[in-house]
């Protein structure tokens, strides 16, 4: 693979350490609202985004810190956004669930399950009609598959032959609802057939497997200007949000999945392959922690937006 394996591991550390700190900051009430951690699923965003180009559009959900960071949104501005600061990537208006970055074609960050999918279709339509080369990659959860928006969007994308890569991050639960209690057909990739669309699946705990699957799928979408459905099998190690008592799953199941921790297993693999030694791994971890420390300092230090600005950006100032 062309991508730097060390970079993949380093980026997973960056997400993990950032989110661990977010959880602490939530306890300290520095971060408020809903906070959905991606911990356990890092291989998905890291493997996927490393397989894309700057021309591609990305949409994600409220569990999008990792995707934003991978897309190049500076950790400082992500952290500041979670604080609600004007230096945040959404000027403090969005918070954890609404990270945006127009300069990097990162379209959020939505808190309505399924609402990104139709928009992905539209972005791909714009690229197509404006003859831009990019494809649109839309991440969403297994829970979103039950929404009508999934059905309508996949049909539209396939019917209109639009370059959308739909990526299901199937972590087996939608809040407290296990996949088998939400879906009559639990093989989610198989649903593509209903839309005459190609599909594939990959191990979402293995960053290289994700990278390979997304590379292949994205290449097909790019070349064929047709959509594709990719299912990543993954698992979240933490609660759904900070309010979740996790009554719906066994500790044992979580522990079983933790044995497949995407970071620990990949670090071990790189050591086994002689790519890194233990110190090298620790160095990546330390760099990630340092970056997080810097981001927190940045978030703490930058000022609050004046209340007088409340009504700005409801509408676009004329002349823009």
């Amino acid at each position, binding site marked *: 693979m062309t991508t730097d394996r060390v970079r993949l591991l380093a980026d997973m550390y960056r997400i993990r350490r950032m989110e661990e700190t977010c959880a602490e900051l939530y306890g300290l009430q520095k971060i408020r609202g809903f906070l959905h951690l991606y911990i356990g699923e890092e291989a998905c965003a890291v493997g996927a985004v490393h397989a894309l180009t700057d021309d591609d*559009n990305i949409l994600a959900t409220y569990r999008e810190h990792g995707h934003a960071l991978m897309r190049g949104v500076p950790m400082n501005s992500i952290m500041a956004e979670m604080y609600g600061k004007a230096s*945040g*990537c*959404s*000027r*403090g*208006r*969005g918070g954890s669930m*609404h990270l*945006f*970055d*127009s300069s990097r074609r990162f*379209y*959020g*960050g*939505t808190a*309505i399950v399924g*609402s990104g*999918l*139709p*928009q*992905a*279709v*539209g*972005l*791909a*339509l*714009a*690229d197509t*009609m*404006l003859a831009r080369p990019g494809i649109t990659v839309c991440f969403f959860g297994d829970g979103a598959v039950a929404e*009508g*928006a999934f*059905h*309508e*969007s996949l*049909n*539209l994308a396939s*019917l209109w032959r639009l370059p959308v890569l739909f990526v299901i991050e199937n972590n087996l639960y939608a809040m407290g609802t296990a996949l088998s209690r939400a879906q009559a057909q639990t093989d989610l990739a198989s649903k593509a057939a209903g839309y005459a669309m190609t599909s594939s699946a990959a191990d979402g705990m293995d960053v290289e497997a994700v990278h390979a699957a997304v590379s292949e799928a994205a290449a097909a979408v790019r070349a064929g200007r047709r959509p594709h459905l990719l299912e990543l099998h993954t698992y979240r190690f933490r609660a759904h949000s900070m309010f979740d008592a996790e009554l719906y799953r066994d500790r044992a199941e979580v522990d079983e999945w933790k044995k497949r921790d995407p970071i620990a297993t990949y670090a071990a693999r790189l050591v086994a392959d002689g790519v890194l030694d233990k110190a090298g791994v620790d160095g990546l971890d330390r760099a990630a922690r340092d970056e997080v420390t810097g981001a927190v300092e940045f978030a703490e230090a930058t000022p609050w937006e004046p209340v007088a600005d409340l009504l*700005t*950006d*409801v*509408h*676009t100032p*004329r002349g*823009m």
Partner: protein
Amino acid sequence: MRITYRDAMRLAIRDALLADPRVLLMGEDVGLYGGSYAVSKGLLDEFGPERIRDTPLSELGFVGAGVGAAIGGLRPIVEIMTCNFSLLALDQIVNSAALLRHMSGGQFSVPIVIRMATGAGRQLAAQHSHSLENWYAHVPGLRVLTPATVADARAMLAPALADPDPVVIVEHAALYNTEADVPEGLTCDIERAAVRRPGSAVSLVTYGGSLPKVLAAADVLAAEGIEAEVLDLRVLRPLDVASVATSLRRTHRVVVVDEGWKTGSLAGEVLARIAEECLFDLDAPPRRVCSAEVPIPYAKHLEDAALPQVEGVVAAVHQVIA
């Protein structure tokens, strides 16, 4: 040039397509069928299926696609056949289109125009007869336009498309066949209400499909010697309260006519603004003439009874003048 409201809408869309390659029209049956109200007839032949884009029956999906297309640099005009079906798409309109700019800290504007037919009066029964304008007028981030005249149908689309933010255009289905002479090069100020008939005895405030009824009522009243001023709100969000107040300060009496159900209506909002800002200018309690609080029935005599009518407007004026 004498044209119908339907023609006016089509000419406006055509102008937009000619003027800007980023503009496209999408919706159910806008292409081959020619539009459910025949607004887009002929456009497919002229502009092709990419820009006159028929969609499947997927209101949530294609409105959301319109939102994405707008963010992505196009200038979509999305037609939802009627406001009744727009209920299926509200999530994309309200939770995405209206919020995105603010929620992203000003990074993404959503230059989409969403057109939909509204209203009752053609015996289409309860599921095809809503007037939900006040729902849309309630939502920050949207602009809501209700062309009531052929001229406004002709001239409102251009400024709506020039607006970098989402605009909802609500077209009363009963207006499509109305005709008028419309000059070339017409423009429209989509910030302001329009006085459709000057008068000093009472202010009749209305919009959309009720305008012809209100003008007819004004004629009846004029024959009685009562000169009513007719104000067409035209822009439901942001409401041009100043024009309402100006009229009222002259007439001191007001009747608001609105095809929405009375409770929770746009007319209610107008009365609230008047009470807040012009209370002591009122010489009589303001009145609303709205739809009865009933799902619109099919039978003609019942439908007529449920909707605002000329006689009801006249009667309300008599009440405020008595």
